[in-house]
């Protein structure tokens, strides 16, 4: 090697931490606190400067002013009244649990490292970690660092899925999740006449938040409609499933939540329409209007039903896609399960992947909502503690059995949602040949369809032939869109298209940071003295 080459510094003796948790949403918080309670040194990392993830963003935003920068600890506000979910609704069970976990974080239960990107993960990584450890490359505060951990719990959440349409790259068109986060964290609203479109129950809280004047919101914002791609029977089946399970507290909670959201929309006089698809976003330089059409049973627009709705903001979302790139990079075996949102790592009953010591929890293990995430986070933490000798096999088994019914119910409900509100097969019909499908590299659907016709029938082959997936998002947005496009053109299942490969860095890292590696900083031992000495 040449002189002056800044290779990674040798890892210090022993692991940087016992358990490293990636993602501080509900699953990651639950995992980190449970692992700390089991007497382990825990490091909790999140790209965001605040804990809580998308789900608990309102609470962490309220706490933002109290951020103690010297210790990076959060203190949190009470989730009472409208301050929590900000929509004037009482908090859900999961929100209450989540808030309690944020409180544990601010009390210093774990070594919490906000603003930290994990850009590589592996058992075979370079520098090779000591036997049985996983190697984790991070980027924080302008430098890179290589950590090692006895166990890693990936709770990296999920991202939104999309169905493109002409004009979806116009300023004024944004993801429903981004609009929600702006409102939750910063009290910002996306426009004065807001249209919300897509599929699934996640559109409801977004609509309610944007429609509710909650003090922080800009006056004069009006949600002019919620356009749901699914047809009424999907909602009726959802409701029927919840009613069937109404004896269970969790299902009662979910039903109550849905009813409260729908009531709030009705109060705000927001029209909610089933079986609608956006066919184009129109505007000169920014969004001015949206054309929508009724759809048939397959989700195809019905000719002659189009109408144009004036709007300066369009929030779109088609369910969630698990963030599994780090698991894929580490070599974890995975499978395609539409009921869980797409590609997910294969796990055993304790959420351990095929890579020893690597666990997944929350949406990363399959999209199933906050209740499932909280339960899975705790289970994965105890399984990691068992692997590290802090929890007995019998205790782990007891934990699993004790929470099994509730978790199964949450997963069942998640699967129902993911299935009923998946982008319908006919939704491809709105993707005209000049619609961009890869926003980063500006590749249009026509070029992709031509490449598919010429034999590029996997994501990998498409990437080589057309540049899709080669931009900054590394195919996170366009991957599922392209897989459905291939499936539609070929008459095959989306999994036949495979996945984009994953290599480090999983997200862009500045050169300055890669060129300056700092020594691994071990987790601060925050355990009571009797635990630490055990």
């Amino acid at each position, binding site marked *: *090697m*040449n002189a*002056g*080459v*800044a*290779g*990674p510094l040798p890892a210090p003796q022993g692991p940087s931490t016992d358990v490293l948790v990636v993602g501080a949403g509900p699953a990651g918080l639950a995992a980190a606190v449970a692992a700390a309670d089991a007497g382990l040194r825990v490091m909790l990392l999140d790209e965001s400067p605040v804990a809580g993830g998308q789900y608990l963003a309102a609470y962490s935003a309220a706490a933002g002013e109290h951020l103690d920068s010297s210790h990076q600890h959060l203190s949190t506000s009470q989730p009472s009244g409208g301050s929590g979910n900000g929509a004037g609704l009482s908090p859900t069970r999961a929100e209450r649990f989540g808030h309690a976990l944020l409180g544990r974080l601010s009390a210093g239960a774990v070594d919490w490292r906000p603003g930290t990107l994990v850009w*590589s993960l592996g058992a*075979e*990584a*370079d*520098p090779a970690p000591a036997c049985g450890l996983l190697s984790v*490359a991070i980027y924080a505060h302008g430098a*890179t660092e*290589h950590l090692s951990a006895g166990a890693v719990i990936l709770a990296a959440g999920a991202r939104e899925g999309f169905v493109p349409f002409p004009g979806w790259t116009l300023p004024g068109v944004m993801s429903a999740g981004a609009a929600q986060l702006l409102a939750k964290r910063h009290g910002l609203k996306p426009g004065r006449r807001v249209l919300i479109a897509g599929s699934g129950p996640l559109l409801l809280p977004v609509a309610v938040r944007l429609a509710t004047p909650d003090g922080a919101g800009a006056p004069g914002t009006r949600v002019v409609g919620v356009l749901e791609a699914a047809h009424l029977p999907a909602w009726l089946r959802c409701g029927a499933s919840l009613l069937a399970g109404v004896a269970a507290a969790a299902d009662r909670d979910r039903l109550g939540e849905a009813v409260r959201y729908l009531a709030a929309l009705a109060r705000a006089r927001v029209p909610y329409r089933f079986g609608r698809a956006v066919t184009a976003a129109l505007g000169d330089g920014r969004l001015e209007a949206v054309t929508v059409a009724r759809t048939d049973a397959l989700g195809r627009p019905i000719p002659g039903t189009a109408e144009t709705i004036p709007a300066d903001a369009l929030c779109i979302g088609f369910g969630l896609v698990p963030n599994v790139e780090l698991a894929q990079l580490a070599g974890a075996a995975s499978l395609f399960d539409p009921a869980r949102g797409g590609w997910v790592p294969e796990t055993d009953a304790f959420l351990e992947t095929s890579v020893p010591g690597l666990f997944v929890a929350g949406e990363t293990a399959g999209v199933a909502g906050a209740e499932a995430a909280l339960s899975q986070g705790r289970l994965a933490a105890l399984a990691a503690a068992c692997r590290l000798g802090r929890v007995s096999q019998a205790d782990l088994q007891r934990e699993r059995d004790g929470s099994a019914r509730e978790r199964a119910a949450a997963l069942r409900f998640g699967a129902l949602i993911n299935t009923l509100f998946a982008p319908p097969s006919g939704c491809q019909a709105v993707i005209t040949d000049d619609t961009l499908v890869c926003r980063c*590299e500006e590749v249009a659907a026509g070029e992709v369809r031509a490449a598919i016709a010429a*034999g*590029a029938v*996997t994501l*990998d*082959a498409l990437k*080589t*032939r057309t*540049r899709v997936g*080669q*931009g*900054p998002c*590394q195919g996170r947005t366009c991957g599922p869109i392209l897989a459905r496009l291939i499936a539609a053109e070929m008459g095959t299942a989306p999994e036949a298209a495979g996945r984009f490969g994953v*290599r*480090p*860095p999983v997200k*862009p*890292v*500045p*050169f*300055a940071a*890669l*060129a300056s*590696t700092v020594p691994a900083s071990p987790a601060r031992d925050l355990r009571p003295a009797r635990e630490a000495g055990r």
Partner: protein
Amino acid sequence: MSHLGAPQTDVVVVGGGIVGAACAYFLTASGLRVRLIERDFPASGTSRACDGLLLHHDKGSAAELALARASNALWEELSRSLDAGIEYRRQGALVLAESAEALAAAQVRALELDREGVRSETLAGGALREFEPALAPDLAGAIYYPGEAQLDARLATRALLEAAQRRGATVDAGLAATGLRLGAGGRVAAVVTAAGEIAAEAVVCAAGVWSAELTRSVGVDLPVRPRKGEILVTSRVPGLLRHPLLESSYTASVQSAAAATGVALVAEMTAGDTLLLGSTRQFAGFDRSVSTAALHAIAARAVRFLPALARASVMRSYAGLRPWSPDHMPLVGPVAAVPGLFVATGHEGAGICLAPVTGQIIAGWIAGGRAPALAELVRPERFAGERTSGEATLGEGTSPLPRKGRF
């Protein structure tokens, strides 16, 4: 006879990388009926995991230089004659010297090349800064080779294949060759695939680092090993770099067979305003993962020479397996022990550059029935007898090259 229902085939080319594509291109130009099979998709192996530089100055021997000159001249022709764009640009390349000693050594090298007709000029100080403003100001200087060029290897592979198809070639993607069937006199009779046999008069094995898998099925060992090269891609940096860059120790790192990760910077602009930055050279079997060590090492080298990159990001990375050969010359031509079998591999990092001349030599052997110009330089049988394993060897001819004794 073909069991796959395709028209009669004269030659089966195994491998849809740039070398296989060039073979198909020149074989069809000679009027032969060609069927190319590729187990994944065109350019799915090394040809999409490389840079696109077409260089003269890094060639380690007169023989290698002769091949490069012939091939680069063919690329220039092809850039005009191929219907599809290949992003061919001939804007020269800069060889960077950090120290006065390195510059002196680079100038000696430039003088040697000048005697071979490879022109260059030395740039230093203000002239260098004006020529390439983003370079670190403390460099001793650089040699500018105006004849160097670059292209997009994926586009070039596709353009060659499409041209071959227009001349009647059949391209089967997703079809793997699992073996070869020999007929009377040990002559190659057919390529065996999962979908049946494809009978042919001749078979060209152009499967890069995977070539040995196929030739082993008829007892022929190729002395070709995978050598991993890692490359990273920057975020968009429009206008940052005007010419491809190579660190002056790059040639040494290519020629060295040392197994350790050697990093000498090579930088190239793409049509998408990103830079490709390489590269490492490492024997690591068939592993195609990218190590974080390689990212750190390449990033550090890149920032050393292009300080403004510190504000850009590493967007992604990839690794390709270069087919290394013991004397750094490709193996192109007939396998004497198996009549009808030809190989075209072993180009290591020069496969993009040497693809056209390789295709021309293969077409000369098969269509012309005799050794074309330059063919002696790359005859596979120069390695005959160096391996004791296997039932057959590469053949018994007289080697045109002195044995290097490194294998």
